[in-house]
């Protein structure tokens, strides 16, 4: 492996392919979207090149502000719940036998193969009154009669956590599997119960991983637009749902683009803030 920084243009050659891909499939479409967000909408679904701020102005209303706030809140909740469940789970998974680890990882990967639509309809069945899990609770006598658990906020949250949890675990796994097992043992010999050692040694030692995973799940949840429609009421619709609605059903591309740009900017700001808070601590993690 070479260690010295690249000097000549030829040294950068291996970067050419990914750079081109990035430009063609990310920079150009995203720039187009930014451009469209300033275009003027024509009646009938078309738009003409222009530079107007109407699309952004329309967005600055209490209604869209509320939706944006709800979307961010939902994404933050999904991220926090996923990491709270996923981190201890993944940690215990890395302590299990190799065989058990493989079985679990294959099961988790298979959940990834389910599309958002299938997850949505599976949960809508599970939460229904006629065939849902409440029937089981009635059968064991915990509930008087079955009832529908959807549409509702809880249903939306459950569906999104279910969808994001496999990603969370797969992102946490490589880092936790490399974690030195003697760290917790050392904490135990120094007088910390295993639970205490987990919270004040393992969790802080993995802070960078946790912050990175929170950001990933947050961004992932922010883009989710089917589950809120299937499992929630209109007040549970996220900004992504409204963008889809504007772009596809209302044929208002400039407004949809403006909302998308706004969403990207807000999420970038939040990610930046998280890194700032997470990174102002000590930087000497890697030995």
């Amino acid at each position, binding site marked *: 492996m070479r260690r010295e920084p690249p000097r000549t243009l030829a040294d950068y050659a291996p970067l050419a392919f990914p750079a081109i891909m990035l430009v063609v499939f990310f920079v150009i479409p995203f720039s187009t979207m930014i451009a469209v967000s300033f275009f003027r909408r024509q009646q009938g679904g078309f738009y003409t090149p222009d530079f107007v701020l109407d699309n952004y102005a329309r967005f600055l209303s209490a209604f869209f502000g509320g939706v944006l706030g709800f979307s961010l809140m939902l994404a933050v909740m999904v991220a926090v719940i996923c990491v709270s469940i996923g981190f201890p789970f993944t940690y215990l998974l890395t302590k299990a036998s190799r065989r058990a680890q493989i079985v679990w990882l294959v099961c988790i990967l298979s959940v990834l193969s389910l599309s958002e639509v299938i997850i949505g309809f599976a949960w809508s069945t599970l939460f229904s009154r006629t065939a849902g899990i409440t029937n089981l609770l009635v059968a064991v006598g915990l509930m008087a009669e079955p009832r529908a658990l959807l549409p509702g906020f809880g249903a939306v949250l459950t569906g999104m956590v279910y969808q994001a949890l496999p990603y969370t675990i797969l992102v946490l796994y490589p880092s936790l599997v490399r974690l*030195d097992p*003697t*760290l917790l*043992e*050392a*904490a*135990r*010999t*120094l*007088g*910390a*119960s*295993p639970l*205490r*050692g987990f919270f004040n*040694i393992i969790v*802080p*030692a993995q*802070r960078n991983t946790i912050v990175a995973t929170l950001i990933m799940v947050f961004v992932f949840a922010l883009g989710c637009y089917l589950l809120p429609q299937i499992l929630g009421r209109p007040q549970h619709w996220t900004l992504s749902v409204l963008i889809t609605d504007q772009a596809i059903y209302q044929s208002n591309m400039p407004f949809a683009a403006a909302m998308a740009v706004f969403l990207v900017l807000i999420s970038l700001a939040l990610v930046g803030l998280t890194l700032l808070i997470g990174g102002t601590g*000590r930087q*000497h*993690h*890697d*030995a």
Partner: protein
Amino acid sequence: MAQDLLNRKQNMSGLSIEGVSKTFGTFRAVDDITLHVPHGTFVCMLGPSGCGKTTLLRMIAGLEEPSAGRIVIDGEDITPVPTHKRNLGMVFQSLALFPHLTVGENIAYPLRIRGVARAQQRQRVEELLALIHLPGFADRPVSKLSGGQRQRVAIARALALSPRLFLLDEPLSALDAKLREAMQVELRQLQERLGITTIVVTHDQREAMTMADLVVVMGEGRIRQAASPIEIYRRPADAFVAGFIGSTNLLPVEVDRAGRAVVLGQAIPDLALPAGMSRGLVSIRPEDVRLQPPGDGAIRGRVSFIRDLGGTIETFVEAGGSTIVAVTTPRERDDIAAGTEIGVILPAEACVVLEE
């Protein structure tokens, strides 16, 4: 009466390992070990990898559960006590310093767990840093330390609560040879000053010889010999111990019709085999082997190789199908060249007879 009580108390103080075994599946990692370590003793558990020494140490720490037997400290059976209530200090092979904490925070961790006041924590950290010769290091991140400094911090952290037992698992294996030797001496001096019962697991016999009051040689999950370093060196219990501690010559010995002990065709005067034993092995350290011109009473051989290390000279002698190594200092040795016919004398008082 008072004397009797004192005796009993002395018997109770220290660490007792009573019939401890550990099996993983069908593999017996530790096989029925019984050992008493008096209070304040420095013990080195020595053996090749896979001999069960680390497993035994982890059982003392409570990180593994014994399959059988019990572990007693100062008369108290600690076998069912969880690790965090055993009050011991342990240094791991990886050192296991907490990467997100500073040197001071690492050392203060056990104090913090027990809710010691901040000012007292600070004071104890300063004390310990002085003890390990790293004053003023409290606020440094552990990732900025050198190998030897990390080593010392791990030791200080383990000693922060003045534990009743100090356990170290291959503590010096990550250091380079020179630093390792210096740390061995330092560790021993530290232990003497604190008078703490200490158990070190190592595969380095020099380390064991330097530091230990009591060397426990382990092989295949059992104790092969437990004695002082010099006793182990001078009187190894079997061929395994003789071969593991230092280098040795292991030569076949048998009793001839006249009742004399014969090694490589030469009777060794004053050497006697235990009663009922007709053949065995003789272990003799290279520095005890004497070389002289061929003649009566000497094993006849031919010098095959000479390794001149400056401070010592190793002479390899081929005799009767065996190789005998003799170590001398340059001053006491006459000029011998490879290929010379030579006589080898094995002084009986330096020979240890072992079972085959």
